[in-house]
């Protein structure tokens, strides 16, 4: 099956100028590597990775604040496992945990309600990191916590939105892309309509190798036909309007705000901040903390990697001092980080 798809890609790519398509989803990045898709594409079709991993774009300051909260007495930090090794300016959550902080890895944000109920004398803080796929689940838990009168559960949001980051990439002259493979599960929530501003060939893709190849065929056909539209190759779960209930709950609990992305800087209206109505659940308002802004001196090129300007191999630290067990940049930390995928799959 995949052979037939690759042949079709070769046929469509023949005689075309070099084309660069960007995926902006860490799960796509891993699927592409696992299936060896980069290696079987014709030489004039290049796949580059963009800022598709929410953990990788979480900035030092957020990690430093999370570490501050984790070290307070009677605090339990609840987090997705990916966050444990993300470097802050001095240390990371794994080291803080080894020194006695109570840090619990959870599967669902809903687990936080149970942890809060089982530990009534402690404050439970959930590190809410994620894109549009995950953010509605956090919003739903905040609604549930409010309805149940939970008083010892708080949220520390670094949640981010994908479309503003794509807008920023398009305005950056150093970023050269001819089309986007759009993130399938972000699109489950947002719907294809949310990406209509792109003005480049764009295709929402599923995560099987065949689905990614099908999306690439669609991108090449759009180039052939001179189209620049948002097409959907993941119709089984992605609708034009997305998940209306999830979007409604998200907007009920969060509002947009300017937010800093590691390696990319501040992107206007790209972050999700808890609304005033739910301020009792916002740890930044209940317990505001200032941490020293530290600019780390490092040759790490995560910022350029995240914009598809360089590949990890062009970073002087890659595979040398920067490895999954000793990550300098956050792209090496998460299993879905670009550098981690290159480390694991590119020999």
């Amino acid at each position: 099956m995949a052979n037939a798809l690759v042949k079709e890609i070769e046929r469509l790519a023949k005689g075309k100028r070099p084309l660069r398509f960007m995926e902006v989803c860490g799960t796509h990045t891993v699927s592409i590597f696992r299936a060896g898709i980069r290696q079987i594409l014709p030489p004039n079709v290049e796949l580059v990775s963009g800022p598709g991993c929410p953990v990788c774009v979480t900035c030092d300051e957020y990690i430093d604040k999370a570490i501050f909260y984790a070290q307070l007495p009677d605090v339990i930090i609840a987090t997705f496992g990916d966050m444990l090794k993300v470097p802050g300016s001095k240390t990371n959550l794994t080291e803080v945990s080894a020194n006695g902080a109570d840090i619990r890895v959870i599967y669902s944000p809903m687990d936080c309600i149970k942890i809060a109920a089982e530990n009534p004398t402690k404050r439970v803080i959930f590190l809410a990191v994620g894109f549009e796929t995950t953010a509605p689940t956090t919003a739903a838990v905040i609604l549930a916590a409010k309805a149940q009168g939970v008083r010892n559960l708080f949220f520390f949001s670094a949640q981010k939105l994908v479309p503003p980051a794509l807008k920023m990439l398009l305005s950056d002259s150093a970023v050269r892309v001819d089309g986007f493979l759009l993130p399938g599960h972000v699109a489950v929530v947002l719907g294809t309509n949310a990406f209509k501003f792109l003005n480049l060939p764009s295709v929402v893709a599923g995560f099987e190798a065949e689905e990614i190849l099908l999306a690439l065929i669609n991108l090449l056909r759009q180039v052939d036909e001179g189209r620049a539209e948002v097409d959907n190759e993941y119709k089984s779960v992605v609708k034009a309007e997305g998940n209306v209930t999830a979007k409604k709950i998200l907007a009920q609990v969060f509002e947009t705000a300017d937010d800093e992305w590691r390696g990319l800087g501040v992107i206007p209206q790209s972050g999700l901040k808890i609304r005033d109505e739910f301020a009792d659940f916002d740890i930044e308002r209940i317990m505001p903390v200032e941490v020293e802004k530290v600019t780390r001196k490092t040759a790490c090129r995560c910022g350029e990697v995240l914009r598809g300007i360089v590949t990890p191999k062009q970073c002087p630290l890659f595979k040398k001092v920067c490895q999954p067990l000793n990550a300098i940049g956050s792209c090496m930390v998460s299993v879905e980080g670009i550098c981690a995928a290159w480390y694991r799959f590119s020999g």
Partner: protein
Amino acid sequence: MCLAFPAKIVAIKDTLATVEKSGVKRDASLMLLPDAKVGDYVLIHAGFAMQVVDEEEVKLRDEILNKLEFSIQN
């Protein structure tokens, strides 16, 4: 981070569904997908059902893939 998997709803109580995948049962919240019904395949992310899987679309996709393979081999 945005990993998700399809599973079948086998029971619903209030906003909590029991879903089954490869013989393993677990809970999934229906807060983000209140119209889901027992028997639906749903996409699960972080303990929440995010969307009903449209089985017709899965079939259509497979047909497109088969057609493409047939047309290229012949």
